[in-house]
C-alpha cells in the first residue's frame, strides 16, 4: 500500500476511536446525572473538542478515499481525455483549499492561543489545531491523487 493510503487508514482508525470515546463521554454524562446525582462539568466541552478533531482528520482521509460528495455530471459527459483534465483541476482546487486551511488555520490557532476553553482549562488553540493539520493532509492527498489520476469520488457504500 502507498504511504498516503497507510496514512489515510490510520486517520480513519484514530477518528473511529474518537467517535467511540465521544459515545462513552456522553454515556458517562447521563450516568453521572442520574446514577451519581452530580453532573460532570467537563463532558460537553471535551466531546465538542473531540468531535472537531475526528471530523477534520476523517475529512482529510476523505480526500484520499474520495468519499466527499460532489456533482460528477461534467466528468461523465466529457471525453476520457477531458475527464482526466477535469479530475486534475478538481484535485488542484482541493489542494488549494487545503493550503488555505493550513495557513489560516495556523494563524487561527496562534491568535487564540491564550484564550481558555471553559471547564477544561486548556487553550482554545487546541480545539482549532486539527484544521491546519487536516488542511496539510488534504493538500498532500489531493496532489497525490492528481498525480496518480484516481477518480476523486466513488459514490458507493456510504
Amino acid at each position, binding site marked *: 500500500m502507498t504511504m498516503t493510503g497507510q496514512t489515510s487508514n490510520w486517520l480513519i482508525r484514530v477518528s473511529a476511536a474518537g*467517535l467511540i470515546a465521544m459515545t462513552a463521554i*456522553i454515556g458517562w454524562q*447521563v450516568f453521572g446525572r442520574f446514577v451519581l446525582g452530580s453532573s460532570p462539568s467537563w463532558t460537553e466541552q471535551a466531546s465538542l473538542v473531540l468531535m472537531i478533531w475526528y*471530523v477534520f482528520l476523517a475529512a482529510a482521509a476523505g480526500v484520499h478515499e474520495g468519499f466527499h*460528495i460532489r456533482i460528477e455530471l461534467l466528468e461523465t459527459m466529457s471525453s476520457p481525455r477531458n475527464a482526466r483534465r477535469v479530475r486534475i483541476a*478538481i484535485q488542484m482546487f482541493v489542494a488549494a483549499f487545503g493550503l488555505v486551511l493550513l495557513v489560516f488555520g495556523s494563524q487561527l490557532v496562534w491568535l487564540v492561543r491564550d484564550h481558555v476553553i471553559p471547564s477544561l482549562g486548556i487553550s482554545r488553540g487546541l480545539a482549532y489545531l486539527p484544521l491546519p493539520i487536516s488542511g496539510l493532509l488534504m493538500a498532500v492527498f489531493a496532489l497525490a491523487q492528481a498525480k496518480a489520476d484516481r477518480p476523486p469520488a466513488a459514490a458507493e457504500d*456510504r
Partner: protein
Amino acid sequence: MEILVLFVVLFLLLALGVPVGFSLLGASLALFALIDIPMVVAIQRMASGISVFTLMAIPFFIFAGDLMYRSGIADRLVRVADAAFGKVQGGLGPVNVGASMMFGAVSGSAIASASAIGSTMVPLMKEKGYPADYAVNVTVTAAIVGLLIPPSHNMIIYSAASGMGVSIGDLFLAGIMPGLLTGLMLMTTAWLVARRRNLPRGIFPGWRAFMRAALYAVPGLMTAVIIMGGILSGIFTPTESSAIAVIYTALVGTFVYRSLGWRGFGEAAAKSVRTASMVLFIIAAATAFGFALALLEVPAQLAALIGFMTDNPILTLLIINLMLLALGTFMDMAPLIVICTPIFLPVAIGAGVDPVHFGIILMLNLGIGLVTPPVGSVLFVGSAVGKVAIPALVRTIWPFYCTLLAALVLITYVPWLSLALLGAF
C-alpha cells in the same frame, strides 16, 4: 454584485465537480477576499460551526443506524413486515416501506435507513423476482419517511439552525403523523405500481410465524421506546438520546442477538466516522458560507423579494417550497438546512406558519432532494446497494416522486397534521 460573486463562484466550483464542502468554502473565501474580511474568520466559522452540542447527534445516529444493520435489527424488522404484508401482490414493496418506517422510528438518519433496509430488502426482493429498479426506488423513497418519524438528526440540525429555540421534543412529536401519512401513501403507491407491473405475490406464513417474527424484533423496536420515552420523560436530552441509542444497540447486538463482535463494532465506527465527517465537513463549510450570506444580508433581501411577490400566506409557502425543491435537486439536506433556515424561517413566520410546522415542511421538502439527481445522497446509497445506475432508477421513480410531492402539499397546507400531537404531552 457581491452576492453575484458568491453564487457564481459556488456554481462554477460545484459544476466542475469540486466536492460540495470545498465549493462552499471556496465561494466564502472569494467573497471574504472581495469585501476585505480576514480569511482566518472563514476558518474560525468552519471550526465553530460544528462545535455545537446538538450536532453530535449526527455521528451518533449514523453510528447507531450502522450498528442496527450489523447486529441484525434491520433484518428482524424486515421479517415482521414480510409476515404482515408479504402475501399481497407485489407485497414486498409495501413490506419495504413498512420496514423503513419501523427502522426510521429507531434510527435518526435517512442515509443509515437506506443503507440498512436497502442492504437487507433489495437482495431479498431481487431473489423473489422483483426488478432491481423497483426495489431501489421503494427503498430510497421510503427512507425519506424516517426523516419525519422521530428521532431525526436533521430535525436537530434545524433546531440548532433556527437560533430561536424551536424545541427538539416538539419537532419529534410533530413529525409522527406526517411520517405515518407519507408512509401509508408510499405503501399504496408501491402496491399500485406492483400491480401495474404484475410483480409476484408471497404467501402469508400464518399468525404463529408472524408473532414469532414480532417477538424477535421487540429488543430492536425497544430502541424507539427508549429514545422517545427518554426524551419525553426528561431522562435525557435529544442529543444524549442519540448516544444512548448507540450504547443500547451495541448491547442488544452483542448480548441479545449475539451477532456483533468487537470487529463489527470497530468496522461500524470506521464506516460511520466517514459518513459523519463528510456531512459535518459540509456543515462546517456551510457555516462559513452562512456567515457570508448574513453579512450580505441575503436573508433579508430574499424575504423582501418574496414579500414583494406576494403577501398571501398560501402563495408564500408555495414559493418557499418551490425554491427549496429547486435547491434540493443539487445540494444535500444538512447544509441546506443550515443555510436556508435563517433565510426562510422568518418569512414563514411572517406568513403565520408555526416554526415547528415549518420544520416538518422543511424535512420533507429537503428529504425529496435526497432522492433527486444530480446530488442526492440517499439515491446514491440506493444505487450502490442495488447496483443500479442512477438514470435507470430515475426512469421509473416518478410515481414515487408524485406521491412525495402530494404528501408535501398535504403537510404544508394542513398544519393540524404536524401540530395536533403537540398539546397531547
